């Protein structure tokens, strides 16, 4: 047996020891050995019936508690007797229930929003979900209200950009929504929307994300210490849950912005039983740009770009124990252009988008066992079509048509169980099976001249996993969370089976101060081939194959979490060290943006264009956060390093990754002096990204080598070259964004909000791209000289915007 297998066996034994050892555990408090009963039930939002996840249900006297799961369900086993149970959630009025517990009890609790509560209520942060109280580390939660409150580019509230303001989650280039977690790459982020994987989370070539926040209930990001229920990516899990829809009354929201408008409508189909929510958004960029394009091209050309989103969800309650949710997302970006002259016309379309659909069934077996079973479909497609027609002088017509596409379809079935055997354990276990259908390239060409081409590359693979994890309260001070995931992947005859042990522990030095540590091993069986790293639609998802191994990572993290109960501040400090094996990258000189090849119908073997190597990422993250009161916000700081080594890149020498950024600082403040105004500001500072630029030029002299080569061909001219990959670090970026929202309550519970924001308010010229070009010279001056210059292009300076929102 190898060391790896011993390690795995240790974790399994440890886990099952925990299951079986509940009753005889000598560290059990005496009160738990008395007769105990279970309180279980659901916690929902008053007025809408929306299930609330992550709500704290806590008995201070016993220091026992739990939190609701993703569907608002909780189960808490307590000794017989009188207890005061605090039910609290940030932004909601805390409820205190006094109970005489002498039998199992089922609760249905409505929590009232703090702003709408008529009584003088205690608004506290959740005792149970304080950072110092949970075993989990390297996790951040964002409430959708924060997404709505922070200033946004062009007024487009964006979940992923808000996440970039947190330590350890770094944005890419200026203004883009692609993100990098703890030295990983964008494809190492698992983004799940209601259990469905979203493969491309970008709109507008990466400037905006597909999540606009209107229909979103919660966002949770895991950067490390991954629970065993998550797998398939190395660097992060971004879990986004959609609202279920208002079960009590029809309500909605209209938002009109500078570049897009959105509409949200939710309400009961069958009051108290069935609800729906639908949310749509579309941009007007194409309409705004059209007059400019027409005038610049004398009417010969037309074109434009737009994107649209549609979220739709239905929730139905069959009984208290059986519920279903049907969630759907459709998103599309489209660029279109037409050119026409006397004898020539072309029509080109470029489009990409996601479709996800998940059907989930909740079943409560008893007051301690809850399950969710999901059927999931996820699709991403990128497509380019071109139709060209030319009339030759002899009036013959030549036509050419091409259609090229790439994409992925996933079909998954997943089941998850939540088991609350007693107050010391919360056990989760489950399984996932996914059939991946990749189409790296589909080419269809109709050409009068060279003939027709019809090519399709397909990769089909199967990915599965089983897991078990326990959140185990060993003592009042020590909690551990052992977990184990066994992942499986099959491509043709090649199979990969990999154990993934997970462990997190937390030790409370003081009630409000905890030391934490975690270890995770992850495997990633699908990969994104990206030429740019900024989330362009041409990025290509591919499968592990017999030649391309799965990526693996191991991450060690240690940290501390301190809560200041009286002032509602919390601070966390974490350090991490992550190793990555078999990460992939394009070989030098390789690109999948070779449209010439597509038009010629030549197939590109993607496996030949990539190379695999190793990665190291390490750093520290500090987060000081205030979540309640009139002024909320946080200060985040990240100090990090990210390195790579590939045998076939940089001559085999180690190099800093493109997004290796030494410092990231974010300061976020949201001030609500009263219910009619929200003021917000964010200030961010980031070290520059790394690029490879030619730093030297040499004279091309014939080298005497007998085989014709470029050195001989270009003999006598100069040739740029570079001596180190990522040899250039861009300038440091920083900016201040400001926002103000003016709210007005109207009759019948309606509300109107005017929002104004100023992106990059002091017009800092942050680098977007750097390019090399020749300096200006006078062509007619024989003594003129020319030299290459480095030009920085900056975008998004001092961008004001406004938006109008009407809720009803």
């Amino acid at each position, binding site marked *: 047996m190898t060391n790896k297998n011993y390690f795995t066996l240790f974790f399994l034994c440890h886990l099952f020891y925990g299951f079986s050892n509940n009753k005889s555990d000598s560290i059990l408090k005496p009160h738990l050995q008395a007769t105990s009963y279970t309180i279980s039930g659901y916690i929902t939002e008053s007025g809408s019936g929306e299930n609330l996840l992550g709500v704290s249900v806590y008995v201070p006297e016993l220091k026992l508690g739990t939190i609701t799961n993703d569907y608002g369900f909780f189960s808490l086993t307590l000794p017989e007797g009188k207890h005061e149970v605090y039910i609290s959630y940030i932004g909601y009025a805390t409820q205190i229930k006094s109970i005489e517990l002498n039998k199992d009890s089922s609760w249905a609790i409505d929590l009232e929003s703090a702003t709408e509560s008529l009584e003088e209520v205690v608004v506290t942060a959740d005792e149970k979900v304080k950072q110092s109280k949970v075993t989990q580390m390297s996790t951040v939660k964002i409430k959708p209200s924060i997404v709505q409150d922070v200033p946004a580019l062009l007024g487009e509230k964006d979940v992923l950009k808000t996440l970039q303001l947190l330590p350890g989650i770094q944005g890419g280039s200026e203004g883009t929504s692609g993100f990098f977690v703890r030295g990983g790459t964008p494809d190492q982020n698992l983004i799940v929307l209601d259990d469905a994987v979203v493969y491309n989370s970008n709109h507008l070539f990466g400037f905006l994300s597909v999540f606009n926040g209107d229909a979103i209930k919660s966002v949770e990001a895991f950067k490390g210490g991954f629970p065993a229920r998550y797998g398939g990516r190395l660097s992060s899990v971004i879990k986004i849950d959609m609202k279920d829809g208002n079960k009590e009354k029809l309500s909605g929201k209209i938002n009109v912005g500078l570049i897009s408008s959105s509409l949200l409508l939710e309400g009961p189909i069958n009051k108290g039983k069935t609800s729906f929510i639908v949310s749509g958004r579309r941009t007007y960029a194409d309409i705004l740009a059209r007059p400019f394009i027409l005038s610049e091209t004398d009417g010969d050309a037309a074109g434009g770009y737009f994107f649209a989103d549609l979220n739709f969800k239905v929730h139905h309650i069959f009984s208290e124990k059986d519920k279903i949710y049907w969630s759907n997302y459709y998103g599309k970006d489209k660029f279109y252009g037409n050119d026409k002259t006397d004898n020539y016309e072309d029509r080109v379309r470029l489009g990409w988008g996601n479709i996800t659909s998940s059907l989930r069934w909740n079943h409560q077996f008893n007051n301690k066992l809850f399950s969710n079973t999901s059927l999931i479909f996820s699709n991403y497609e990128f497509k380019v079509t071109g139709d060209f027609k030319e009339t030759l002088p002899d009036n013959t017509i030549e036509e050419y048509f091409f259609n090229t596409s790439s994409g992925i379809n996933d079909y998954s079935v997943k089941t998850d169980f939540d088991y609350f055997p007693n107050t010391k354990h919360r056990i989760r276990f489950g399984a996932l099976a996914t059939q991946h259908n990749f189409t790296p390239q589909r080419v269809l060409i109709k050409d009068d001249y060279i003939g027709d081409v019809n090519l399709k590359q397909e990769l089909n693979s199967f990915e599965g996993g089983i897991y078990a994890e326990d959140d185990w309260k060993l003592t009042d001070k020590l909690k551990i969370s052992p977990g184990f995931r066994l992942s499986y992947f099959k491509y043709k005859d090649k199979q990969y089976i990999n154990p993934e042990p997970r462990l997190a522990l937390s030790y409370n030095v003081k009630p409000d101060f905890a030391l934490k540590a975690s270890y995770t091993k992850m495997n990633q069986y699908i990969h994104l081939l990206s030429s740019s790293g900024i989330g362009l639609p041409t990025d290509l998802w591919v499968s592990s194959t017999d030649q391309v191994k799965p990526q693996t990572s191991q991450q060690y993290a240690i940290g501390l979490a301190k809560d200041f109960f009286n002032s509602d501040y919390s601070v966390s400090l974490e350090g991490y060290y992550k190793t990555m094996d078999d990460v992939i990258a394009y070989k030098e000189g390789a690109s999948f943006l070779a449209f010439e090849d597509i038009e010629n119908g030549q197939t590109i073997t993607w496996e030949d264009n990539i190379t695999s190597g190793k990665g190291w990422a390490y750093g520290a993250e500090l987060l000081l956060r205030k979540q309640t009161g009139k002024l909320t916000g946080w200060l985040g700081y990240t100090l990090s390093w990210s390195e790579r080594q590939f045998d076939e890149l940089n001559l085999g020498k180690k190099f800093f990754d493109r997004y290796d950024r030494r410092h990231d600082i974010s300061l976020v403040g949201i001030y609500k002096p009263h219910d009619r105004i929200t003021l917000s500001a964010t200030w961010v500072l980031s070290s520059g990204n790394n690029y490879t630029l030619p730093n030297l030029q040499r004279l091309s002299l014939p080298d005497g080598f007998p085989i014709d080569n470029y050195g001989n061909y270009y003999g006598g001219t100069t040739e740029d070259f570079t*001596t180190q990959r990522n040899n250039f670090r861009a300038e440091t970026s920083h900016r201040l964004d400001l926002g103000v929202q003016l709210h007005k309550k109207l009759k019948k519970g309606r509300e109107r909000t005017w929002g104004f924001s100023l992106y990059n308010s002091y017009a800092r010229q942050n680098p977007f791209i750097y390019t090399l070009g020749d300096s200006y010279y006078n062509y007619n001056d024989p003594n003129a000289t020319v030299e290459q210059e480095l030009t920085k*292009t*900056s975008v998004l300076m001092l961008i004001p915007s406004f938006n109008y929102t009407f809720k009803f």
Partner: protein
Amino acid sequence: MKKTLLLFVGLMVLFTGCQKVVDAKELLNTEEQIFISSYISPQDTVLRVNVSRALPAIGTPLSISDHEANRNLFLIKNALVSLSDDLGNTAQLFYSDSLDTYLTPSSSLEILSEQTYFLEVTVDAKTFSTSCTIPKKVETINERITYRDDMYGGTEAEITLSFEDIKGADNYYVLGGIASNTVQYDNFEPETYTYPLYFDTDEFLTDNLEDGAILSGTTYSYFGTDATVIDNSIILQVANVEESLFQNLRTTATNAESEGNPFVEYAIAPNNFTEDGVIGVFAGYQITEKKIEVEY
């Protein structure tokens, strides 16, 4: 489409962005270096070492009309250059004004397979040195030619070159060829056209998948029909080269092919000098050639 896309991006930049020339010296190491390249082989008739300056790619003014002045910015004509073997035999190389390089006849230092050679270059009292080892020669080249009519009414020859990898070492191969056509048009003297053959993605091969494997590459040659063909021959070439030479040729080719494509990472130039202030490649190779007559 391209015009529209550029216009769209242009409008976006116009309304929201700006461009500014920045001082690269603060962000990029642009120190001038000495650049040396030399490839030696037992098949050479002359030994050659190029010695020049590598100047900063950014911020070096070059004349738009005086190309000779530009060349003189790079060329180093007063270097001391010598090659030697491990038996102590040494050959001095001298600057050739006509070829802008340092030369000596191959008879001045015998270059042998699997032997190590040393290069020493002194520029401005600084001496730079490195060594190379001549790899083994590929013994036999095989070819397979398939003829088919091309779309212009001529003939296309698909030529597949194959050879056996030399066992017991990591080998790096470069494939090439030279086509030579002698044709005669009516009422004209015969003319000979010579042009290189390219193996595209097969140009650079390694044996990293299997030691001793049969490696192959494919190229194409075309023949017209509007002239009398007197002779049609092809020289197929396989060079077994040292890794640094392989990397240097491939890097240059890769960067030239992807020039202007912002989505392609620059390939890194190899360097087998260890001293500061110098960069370059001194490497050995052996070439195997086979001449074949092509049907027409």
